[in-house]
């Protein structure tokens, strides 16, 4: 298992995804990232942690340790779970100020995955990012 944001950073993901030029390799990599993302324990899959998407469900668990934010996330769909790993690589271990300063749209644009982030109801990814940002604001 991999700790995203610690073992794998946003830069690592940008580098690796940029290296592939066909969609199949890119999606295989995204699915693999999802497999590396530790599953959330049943106890964290609570109603409160549930971020509803129209199609698949996403759970987000967050904590604050020594001023830094840590997130765990899970989904019942493989590709969405891979996308969650990509989001966590950007946010984990950052201070609330750093979380809020991070340009997630630019990051997903660099990865050519912006359409996944902007589909408002499709996959719960956007709602999850909004929840992370709200929690960061609260923790400021």
């Amino acid at each position, binding site marked *: 298992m991999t700790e995203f944001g610690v073992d794998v950073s946003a830069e690592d993901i940008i580098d690796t995804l940029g290296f592939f030029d066909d*969609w*199949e390799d890119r*999606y*295989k990599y995204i*699915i693999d990232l999802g497999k590396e993302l530790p599953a959330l324990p049943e106890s964290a899959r609570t109603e409160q942690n549930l971020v509803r998407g*129209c*199609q*698949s*469900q996403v759970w987000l668990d967050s904590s604050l340790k020594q001023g830094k934010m840590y997130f765990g996330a899970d989904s*019942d*769909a*493989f*590709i*969405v779970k891979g996308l969650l790993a990509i989001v966590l690589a950007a946010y984990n271990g950052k201070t609330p100020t750093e979380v809020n300063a991070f340009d997630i749209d630019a990051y997903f644009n660099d990865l050519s995955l912006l359409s996944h982030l902007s589909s408002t109801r*499709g*996959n719960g990814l956007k709602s999850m990012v909004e929840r992370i940002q709200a929690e960061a604001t609260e923790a400021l």
Partner: protein
Amino acid sequence: MNHFDVGELRSQFPILQQRVNGQPLVYLDNAATTQKPDSVIDAIANYYRNDNANVHRGAHALSDRATEVFESARQKVAEFISASSKDEVLWTRGTTESINLVASSWGGQNLSAGDRILVSAMEHHANIVPWQMVAEKHGARVEPIPVDADGSINMAAFVSLLDERVKMVAVGHVSNALGSINPVSEIISLAHGVGARVLIDAAQSIAHWPVNVAELNCDFYAFSAHKMFGPTGMGVLYGKRECLESMPPYQGGGEMIETVSFAGTTFNKLPYKFEAGTPNIAGAVGLAAAVEFLQGIDRTAADQHETQLLARAEQELDALGGYQIVGKASQRVAVLSFIGDFAHPQDIGMILDKQGVAVRTGNHCAQPIMDQFGIPGTVRASFSLYNTVEDVDRLIAGLAKAKMFLA
């Protein structure tokens, strides 16, 4: 003479000529919305180019012309569904608004505490929620008609649910989630037997075969233009004259009134009583063009063509393995709803999209039946008359790749 040539038909749909993600588009999301032929697109554009004005205001030539095309569209739709008069054809925004109109206007007038409304367990949310809203207001109850594991209505259970407290039976002609064709004629006569009114949600059937509402003897019949090659934002509510006459208006405003004063207002006659405000004139024009499009093709041949596509898709999906079809009612339109035993429907849909194949994934706004089946949703490939054998083969190739990827 009407004829059916899929290649020639397809060439009338400009949107289908494009590439998506580097591949020629395979559009298999027709149950969500169908694409539009040139004739519909041109009719709408020409209306705005040449005839646009507000309707029923008289006073100038353009307005007369707009009124003429608007009302002849209504006549065309009345003939298309075999309504006895164009006064029984109301314009709405779509199926959803048609059902809300009946629930609110008819329901508000006819429902009281203890009354029951029956809807099938596989209805679209649009044919559940409006009933729940009006039922709650009046102390009535909405109850599901059980659906069997194969996706067909359990008629014995339906019969046993019927009693004189049932005031409305609202069922889909075709299930959008599973494709099942429901025995609506039988349902209508059984419901009438206990004095209930019947609303048929025809959103998914209208594009598939000719309908005769007089013969069906339903009280209300609702559909959307956009699922029958017409524009979005346009729909129809057919209602029997006797029902519509006695129902109160749905919304207030211009067009729907006869006289207005602070002492009291009198309402316009049918159908205008239910059409407050400036209507979707271009929508009516586009819908009329869609009706003409359908009247110009051999619909029996089109239906056979779709049935063949479904049979081929089912056979090839079976041969592929790892996928299970959800909903195997003996009577179905060309909708293939299925799940993979190795991944979430959304994963499968995303991999198909990457290959230029457009399908819908999710619960298809029919959450109760998905809950009954214990699945989060399905992948749904829905075929239309412009789909081809190559489209089926691209779908299956796409699914083979999805399996390789995700399994």
